[in-house]
């Protein structure tokens, strides 16, 4: 009995950590989709790039963890803004197939580039000493880094939501997601708004990729292998929603951890099956608008 209980705690804990990473990475994808009508398959590449930049700064130049993470986020935001202005914006609200092909192409380019620069091996993720080892939470001990991850994720999510509720930018994003035409008529500069949202989403992805490097290891095929997960979180959450993906990330993170704990040999099969069933009931996702 105690065994089962402890397993449940453990699955919940690791599931929560995974959920945080998935949410941080996917929320930007959901907003780009809802706001600009753009299917950005390469979104995961921003997360991957975040992970690469961070681990590289840490291992090559001994930059401390926090600073390396910040550097990675800034780097990815810059790259994403350039790409947005040069490529993405041409395709907003345009042909789905073009978006899919263009972003698939970007994934391939990213894969090749990181292999060229950093080699084909998985990047080592060594959390700082303070965050490694185990932490005793009274009733039992947990891996320190993942505990940190969960706390960190929770803080970031709260900040993000507060920002969207309280700031002018947040109000504009919500208005535009709700009704783009209306937002334009009341004088919101949508082009700037799109760029800012895109940068924010990519930055969050980089943050998720860096923080989560220990759960989703930084390898060359990261953007392709985890693509399904990011897409599931967005689709199950409901396109354009900001809280929906959070619920979906929790669902995916925890159930995926549970399934892999119970029947590891089936890999991700059950999470896929669950997704299909969920979408059968809610074709627009859990929090999708009708």
């Amino acid at each position, binding site marked *: 009995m105690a065994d089962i209980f402890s397993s449940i705690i453990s699955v919940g804990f690791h599931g929560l950590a995974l959920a945080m990473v998935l949410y941080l990475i996917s929320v930007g994808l959901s907003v780009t*989709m809802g706001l600009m009508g753009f*299917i950005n398959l390469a979104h995961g590449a921003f997360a991957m790039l975040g992970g690469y930049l961070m681990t590289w700064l840490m291992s090559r130049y001994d930059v401390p963890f926090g600073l390396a993470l910040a550097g990675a986020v800034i780097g990815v935001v810059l790259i994403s803004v350039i790409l947005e202005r040069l*490529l993405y914006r*041409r395709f907003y609200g345009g042909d*789905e*197939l*073009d978006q*899919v*092909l*263009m972003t*698939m*192409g*970007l*994934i*391939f*380019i*990213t*894969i*090749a*580039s990181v*292999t*060229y620069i950093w080699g084909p091996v998985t990047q080592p993720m060594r959390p700082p000493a303070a965050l490694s080892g185990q932490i005793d939470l009274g009733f039992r001990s947990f891996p320190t880094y993942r505990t940190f991850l969960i706390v960190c994720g929770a803080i970031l999510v709260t900040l993000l939501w507060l920002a969207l509720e309280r700031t002018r930018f947040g109000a504009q994003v919500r208005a535009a997601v709700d009704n783009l035409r209306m937002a334009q008529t009341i004088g919101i500069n949508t082009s700037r708004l799109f760029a800012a949202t895109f940068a924010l989403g990519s930055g969050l992805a980089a943050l998720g990729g860096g923080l989560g490097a220990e759960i989703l290891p930084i390898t060359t095929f990261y953007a*392709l292998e985890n*693509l*399904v997960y990011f*897409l*599931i979180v*967005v*689709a199950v959450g409901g*396109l354009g929603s900001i809280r929906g993906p959070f619920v979906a990330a929790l669902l995916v993170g925890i159930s995926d951890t549970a399934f892999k704990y119970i029947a590891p*040999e*089936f*890999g*991700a*099969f059950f999470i*896929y*099956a669950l*997704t*299909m069933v969920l*979408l*059968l009931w809610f*074709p*627009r*996702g859990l929090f999708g608008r009708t």
Partner: protein
Amino acid sequence: MSHLTPSADRRAADIAAFSRRHRFHWFEALPWLIAVAAYFMFPNYLALGSQILAIILFALSVDLVLGYAGIVTLGHAAFFGVGAYTAGILAANGWGEPISGLLAAAVAAACIGLASGWIILRTTGLTLLMQTLVVAAMLYELANKAYRFTGGADGLQGMSVWPIFGTFRFDMFGNTAYFYCLVVLFFGWLVVRNTVNSSFGRSLTGIRENVGRMHAIGAPVAQRRLVVYALSAALAGIAGALTAQTAQFVGLNVLNLERSGTILVMLIIGGIGRLYGAFIGVPLYMIAQDRFAEADPTYWYFWIGLAMVFIVVFLRGGIFGVVERLLARSRKQ
């Protein structure tokens, strides 16, 4: 009125031209002539040749859903793989008759297509795309797990494919395999060609061009899309079965994302929704891959990625699209 009603002659001419559009043109014979010529010119590359022919069929099946019905899929490997495993498992378990193997593959793939399409096609955009991915990934996990039947990660071994019609043995030089693939591709092409020229096919084009209007003229859009999805799945299944039978081996890679993704690349290189894009894009891609990819897969990915972005930004419609535009321009002058 400024617009006069044309004469009865003009009417007859217009209607005749319109109703003859599906007739064969001389240039449609070209791919087949080239395929036969290639057999004599490159006898050492017949294995690659058969693979190309089978993949052209796969690309045709994708073109049907993507280019004609406008369903963006990243999971068509699901059907290719189901077909490959169906034919492969049959041949490894004592039923090596190739033609019935193809048919079994088609039926199995069509069933999966119907079942998954029924769920998937209710959604649109990102959700639909994700589900196509998920279906393929599920089958991948299943095939991986069911190693007793599929050989799992080691691949399916011990296939024994019988001679075609009990006469034409699959020889080690790949002569039989080449013509087998060519003939099957030919029939597959006839089916696809006939479908896209039928009223059904034209209504698919209508769905791609403007779904809203198709609804507004009373078309059962969902049903049409499901039918074409299943038909396309069947063809993809046959393509997979062809690959399995000629290679006498099935690996897990028949089901992976790379296969679903690269087939799109091949198709856009040639041109989507044109029926002939597959005949240009697939050989180009596969020959280039054969020459360059082995040497350096990293560069290969880079150039493919760059090509995709380039085509989408500058070369809309692929090679065929560019040729068409050039022809149109020269005609105007």
